[in-house]
């Protein structure tokens, strides 16, 4: 526990330094671009809690993310006075519950069925939102971004940046403390051999449900500030497949076994994309992500983190023997 507290203080210092550097540069664009990078740190870390730790691939990131965003749209239309952190808590709760429900329906099946079901869920959720006129339907919803930060003096985008910075610190802390806990060892047992884990008394379904709910909740919280960031949200952009691709690519490129991999992957890939979008084109920057994803899963199965860790090969049974 002591180590976690020390790590928490350390990451808060890093976060404060990041904000200070961004303030020193003094350009609003830094906050706009930095917000996206931070958002992907949260998404990649959240995906990795389920995908990296337990081995269940979630293709439905966009759905959890967009549900968080649309819960903010709904709250903005009904109780606009709520502070943003409360809206994020609500968005996280909704996405977490959806994750729990979906996990309950499909997690007793083989892993691939869960993955296909998450894809299916994303389309069902998108269809529901598209047909729900109160939150804008297919036309989309406009949200007016307040001009100044409610807490400190500065632009609202700086406030969004700080909120996302804190959320990314929280999610990294969660991921790291899970990794070194009983829960984390249970997750790893599921990933390595679910049948053996079940046989030795690991409550696999319960652990998988915890992972799905937690991962979904963090994705929902990451999506909740989105309407204030983009100021116009329509289903096609909220549910965009690029969220799912990025969120899978980042942990796999960084390395899925530890909390550090998704953070490295998110920082590298999101920064690269921000640069490529500005300098080349957004379609090419997406192509780059796809190509990097395929190259890394083929050539570097342990990701960037794997390059620096000692080469100990676990005993894997050779296939088809």
């Amino acid at each position, binding site marked *: 526990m002591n180590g976690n507290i020390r790590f928490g203080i350390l990451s808060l210092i890093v976060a404060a330094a990041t904000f200070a550097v961004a303030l020193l540069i003094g350009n609003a664009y830094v906050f706009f671009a930095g917000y996206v990078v931070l958002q992907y740190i949260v998404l990649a870390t959240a995906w990795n809690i389920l995908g990296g730790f337990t*081995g269940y691939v979630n293709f439905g990131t966009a759905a959890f993310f967009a549900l968080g965003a649309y819960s903010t749209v709904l709250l903005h239309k009904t109780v606009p006075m709520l502070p943003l952190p409360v809206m994020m808590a609500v968005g996280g709760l909704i996405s977490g519950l959806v994750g729990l429900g979906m996990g309950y329906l499909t997690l007793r099946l083989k892993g691939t069925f869960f993955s296909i079901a998450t894809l299916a869920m994303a389309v069902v959720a998108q*269809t529901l939102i598209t047909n729900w006129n109160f939150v804008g339907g297919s036309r989309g919803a406009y949200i007016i971004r307040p001009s100044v930060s409610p807490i400190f003096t500065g632009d609202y985008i700086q406030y969004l940046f700080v909120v996302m910075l804190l959320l990314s610190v929280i999610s990294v802390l969660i991921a790291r403390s899970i990794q070194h806990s009983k829960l984390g060892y249970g997750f790893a047992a599921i990933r390595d051999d679910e049948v053996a884990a079940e046989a030795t008394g690991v409550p696999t379904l319960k652990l998988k449900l915890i992972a799905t709910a937690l991962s979904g909740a963090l994705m929902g919280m990451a999506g909740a500030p989105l309407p204030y960031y983009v100021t116009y949200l329509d289903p096609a952009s909220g549910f965009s497949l690029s969220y799912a691709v990025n969120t*899978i690519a980042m942990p796999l490129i960084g390395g899925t076994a530890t909390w550090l991999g998704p953070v490295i992957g998110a920082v590298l890939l999101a920064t690269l994309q921000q640069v490529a979008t500005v300098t080349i084109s957004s*379609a090419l920057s997406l192509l780059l992500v796809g190509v990097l994803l395929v190259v890394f899963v083929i050539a570097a199965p342990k990701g960037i983190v794997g390059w620096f860790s000692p080469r100990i090969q676990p005993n894997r049974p*050779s296939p088809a023997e």
Partner: protein
Amino acid sequence: MYISFDLLSNALVSGLLLGGFYAAVTIGISISFGMLDIVNIAHPAFIILGSYTAYIANSVFGFDPILSSIVLMPAFYLLGVAIYYIYDISFERRGDTSIRGLAFFFGLLFITEVTLVLVFGVDYRLVDAPYIGPSIHLGVVDLPLRLLIPFMVSMALVGGLQLYISRTFIGRAIQAVAQDPSALRLMAADPSRIKQIAFGLSIATASVAGAILIIIQPVEPSIARDYIGRIFAICVMGGLGSFGGTVLAAIILGIMESLTSTFYGPSWSPAVAFGFLLLTLAVRPAGLFGRR
């Protein structure tokens, strides 16, 4: 609610025809996912690729889209063989098909889609053929040829594959590899070579499926995604790898979608397939017609 008989019978017939077309789109997945256990979620992207090759053959050279897609099947077969080769050495031999194998195909899906966007843009493309437009009228029921011809092509494709799988030596070996790869090895046949052929076949069907897709509706790169859930829903409902089950499940889904879009509006129809898939997975994961 008053339902007119004409409307209902037309919705049923076009659902049946649509379902037949879905069978052609799904048959490749029934081979790769149902029989070989390869979760090729990039399959719809290859179907869209097939639509675009048919589009080029039609708009640039003036060929019939369906005939040209049949001629192009060997090229798609080779593409499938190449993809399986990479998949085999990178994932299957390392015994690591779960996360990375899935991510590999997800990456392929995305690369294919973005490349098509970069080359052709996001405009909708269509083809031109004499059977697009006219309809046959049987009493109150309309049979549009642009649905009827794809239905017949699709049935011919599925029937041909069924014959191939059940009558030829390689076809029986594919069935054997689906049941027990190590037993196949004992019979002195190489499972990964058989799987390579089968996967090549599954991608070859994407050429024809793509051509009939672009006859039925205008195509742009991102519509691949609408088909991911649909084809997996059909494949799972059909009992994974059973061709007869695939056709039946495809027709059921086609009719359900057609009824939904006739009576509730087309914006709801995507949710039908996915809702049905979620329900199938939750209640009866072996599929409606599955034996397992």
